Structure formats: C-alpha cells, structure tokens
C-alpha cells in the first residue's frame, strides 16, 4: 500500500510539473476558481449583513460551514477527478489498459492524472476555515482537532463513495458523468446553506440518499456548538466518520461488481 502511495505522489508531482509549464493558465485557473468561490461567499456576506442570520446561523458560522465543504472537496479532488472521467475510458475502451497491469485497478485509476485545481480549493478552504473559526469564536483543543481530522476523512470518503457509485454506473449505462454531476455538483449546492432551511423531503434526501449533509452541516455543529438539527437527532454531528467509512465500503463493493460485469461481458 505504501508503494501505491509513493507511486501516486510521483505521478502527481509529474503531472503538476507538466501543468506548470503552462504557468499563465495555471495561475489564471487558480485565481479564477478562488475568485468564483469568493464571490459566492461575498454574496452570503451581503445577505447576512442585511438579514443578520439564516435560521440562527450568523456569517461566521455559515462561512465555517462553507469552508468545511470546500476543504473536504479540495482534499478529495485529485481522486474525485479520476472517477469523473471513468466513463470516458470505458466508452473508448482505454479502460482495458488498466486491466492488463498487475496491480489493483482501483489504485491505478487514481494515479493516472492529478487535478491541480485541488490547490485552489485547498488554499481557499484552509483560509476561509481559519478566518471563519476566528469569527465564529471556535475554541480549538486536542479533542476537537482530532475530531476535525476524523470529520475531514469521513467527508472525503463520502464524496469519493458518491463518485465511485456514479463511475461504476458507467459499466452499465456508459455516459455516467452526468450522474456524477447530479450527485456531486447539484446536490452540493444545497449544502452551502444550513439544510434546516429546507423542507423535510430535501433534508431527508441530503441525509439518507446523497448524504452531503454529513460533509458539513452535521459535523459543523459540533465545532460551533450549535443545536439546529432540523428533524434529526443531535447524535448526527458525530457520525460523519462512520458514514464515510460505511459508504466507501459499499461503493467499493459496488465497484467490484461493476468490474466483474465489465470483464464477463467481454469488451
């Protein structure tokens, strides 16, 4: 496994170097992405300056919510990107290339390209996280720091699991990148705000079907010491790591199913 990680890092470094050759575009990309997200946050700031709070969440708290989503997305992005384009490989038949190599297919796919825009998400995520923590007045200690690490791992696993689910679907329905877009991008939009503002159906959807609520909404309340769980028990604020691991195991099983199906149908 360490060999896999080392290989991943070597390839990642090579990829970044290749991208850096187009330095201007690289910088443009990072700046553009950061600005786009900052505009979104600015919009929230303007709203809260006028209305003071969204369902009891003030700007610092909403910004913290925002940063958790951003941070976990940035951390997971390099892997996420691979699964987004899996359907392209399956369609073109390039996927067979991976089956021939004598390594676990899963890890191969992950290291074939590195999304440099993850850098933008990480820079922005970390910055907003630090600033928002200050504004929201969060007191960090060893326990909360450890839990943060667990939460981030869980949040990343949840997003990876969703990506794997949609990518695996390409073994059956080919153009699954749209499914990916629906699952990741469309649902994520809801979670920029506390989901308690939505109706019951949406809350249930975001908690039990596409559990993005566990990426930021529930765990944020642990750190912010809030109690705005809508229709759910406060227990949910601790569950992110578990949900992450559980979903990832499920996704991996589904993935193995997909690989078997792909190989048995004879590309």
């Amino acid at each position, binding site marked *: 496994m360490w060999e896999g990680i080392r290989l991943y890092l070597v390839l990642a470094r090579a990829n970044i170097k290749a991208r850096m050759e*187009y330095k201007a575009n690289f910088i*443009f990309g990072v700046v*553009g992405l950061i600005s*786009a997200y900052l505009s979104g946050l600015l919009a929230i700031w303007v709203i809260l*300056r006028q209305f003071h709070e969204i*369902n009891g969440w003030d700007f610092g708290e909403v910004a913290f919510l925002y940063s958790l989503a951003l941070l976990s997305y940035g951390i997971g992005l390099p892997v996420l990107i691979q699964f987004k384009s899996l359907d392209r490989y399956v369609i073109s038949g390039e996927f067979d290339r991976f089956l021939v190599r004598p390594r676990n297919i899963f890890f191969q796919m992950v290291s074939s390209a590195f999304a440099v825009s993850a850098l933008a998400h990480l820079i922005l995520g970390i910055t907003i996280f630090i600033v928002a923590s200050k504004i929201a007045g969060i007191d960090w200690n060893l326990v909360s720091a450890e839990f943060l690490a667990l939460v981030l791992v869980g949040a990343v696993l949840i997003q990876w699991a969703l990506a794997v689910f949609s990518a695996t679907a390409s073994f059956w329905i080919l153009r699954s990148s749209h499914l990916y877009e629906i699952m990741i991008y469309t649902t994520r939009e809801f979670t920029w*705000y506390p989901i308690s503002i*939505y*109706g019951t159906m949406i809350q249930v959807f975001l908690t039990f079907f596409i559990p993005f609520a566990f990426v930021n909404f529930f765990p944020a309340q642990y750190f912010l010491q809030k109690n705005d769980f809508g229709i759910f028990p406060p227990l949910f604020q601790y569950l992110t790591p578990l949900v992450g691991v559980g979903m990832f195991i499920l996704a991996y099983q589904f993935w193995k199913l997909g690989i078997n199906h792909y190989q048995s149908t004879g590309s």
Partner: protein
Amino acid sequence: MRAYLEFAKKAFQKAMAYRVEVFLSFLWGIVEVLIYVCLWSTLFRTQSVVKGLTLNEVITYSVIGVTIRQFTSMDIVALVEEKIRTGEIATDLMKPIDLGAYFFSCAVGQSWFALFARALPLFSIVFLTVKIALPANGLFFLSFLLSVLLGYIVIFCINFIIAMVTFWTTESFGLNTLMGGIIAFLSGRVVPLWFFPETLERIALALPFRTVFFSPLSIYLGKVSPNEIVGVLIQQALWAAVLLIATRLIQTVAVRKVVIQGG
C-alpha cells in the same frame, strides 16, 4: 444574412441533440429555485418587508432571474476554445463570414432552443407551484422583454470578448470562471442590488453586468417608475453599444494575430 440564419438553425439543432445536458441544465434551474425559495422564506420570517421589498417580490426576482439565466446560457467560449484546440479556427477564418456575427448566430440558436426547452418549461412549473408576481401591466412587461434583450447583447459581448482572449491564452478556464463568479454576484443575479451595502451597490450599478439581470428584474417588479424605464433602457443600450464596439476591436486584433502566426 441567410447564412447566419443557417448557423443559428444549426446551433439550435445541435443543442437539441444533447438531451441529457438539456435535462441537467433544467434540473439545475429547479435546484436553484428550490434553494432561493427556501432561503428567502427563512430570511423573511422575522420581517415582512426589507428595504421596501416583500418576500413575494424577492422570490419573484430570484425565479425570474433563474429563468433569464436559462435563456442567456451560451457556450461560445467553449466553442472557440475547441476550435482553437483542433485548429479548425484557421479554416473558419478563411471563410467569408464575420466571426462575431457567426458566434452571435450560434448564441441566438442556442438561446432560442433554451427558451423553449428550459426557460419556459421551468417558468411554467415554478409558476404553478410558487406564488410569483407578474408585471403590473403591458408597459412593464414589454419594457422587461426589451431590457432582457439588451442585457442579452451585453452578456454575449462579454462572452465573446472572453472567447477572443482565448486566442492568446488557449485555455479559457481561469478567465471564464473568474468572470462567471464576478458576474453572478455583481449583476444582482444571486442577491438583488437593493440589499447591497452602499459602496458595493454603487460599484455594481456602474458596471455593465447589472444590465443583464438587475435592470430587467427591477423593471419587471415595477421598482422603476414608468418615466425612469426609458432611462434604464438607454443606459443598457449604451453599454451594449460600447461592448459591441469592444468586440469588433478585439476581434480584429485576434484575427490579425492568427493570420500573422499562421494559425
């Protein structure tokens, strides 16, 4: 002239072929409406009127804004980037058609399709499920439509300029994303300009972006008195003219660059 109509028709048909993409964009619109309705409803729980606006008016603002956006969506930047990547742009430039007019025809074809496949269906569904205000009378409605069209020209010009910049940068991602974010905010699409703090509001009003969303939406809601409407429309027309001139200029420079460098 007929050639450009053909281009528009082709763009229309091309848009029609990507059915899943159309559905996804439509779905995105529904999600946006859901979020806005819930957000504003929550925010207006403690006060019924904020800065002279009621919940109904703000929801209407957001919903019509989403509808306009479905209509004005165009992928000219992606189109140009692809043509540059494949080298097709060189052959395009050799043809006796004007690049700007060509892409405008494509945009029109795409938007015409978007109007019927996304904007109107979205509006119909929302109209049946959410309480939306309608323009006070025919004058406001027609002015609103004219305002939307003027804003359309503005957003096309901005897109075209970004596309032309791609002649130098080859990749449009950075600039496109940057402009996308800035425009979403400063145009008043996400948050009505009435809620902006004074300095930001002044900046937003001074820029052309608000002509795409804030101007038509404020006319729609009747927040502009009948005599002021002409003033707003003239401002929009001026911005459209300025930007059109800018597109011609940058197009000339960009084309010259390609010709000199041999594609």
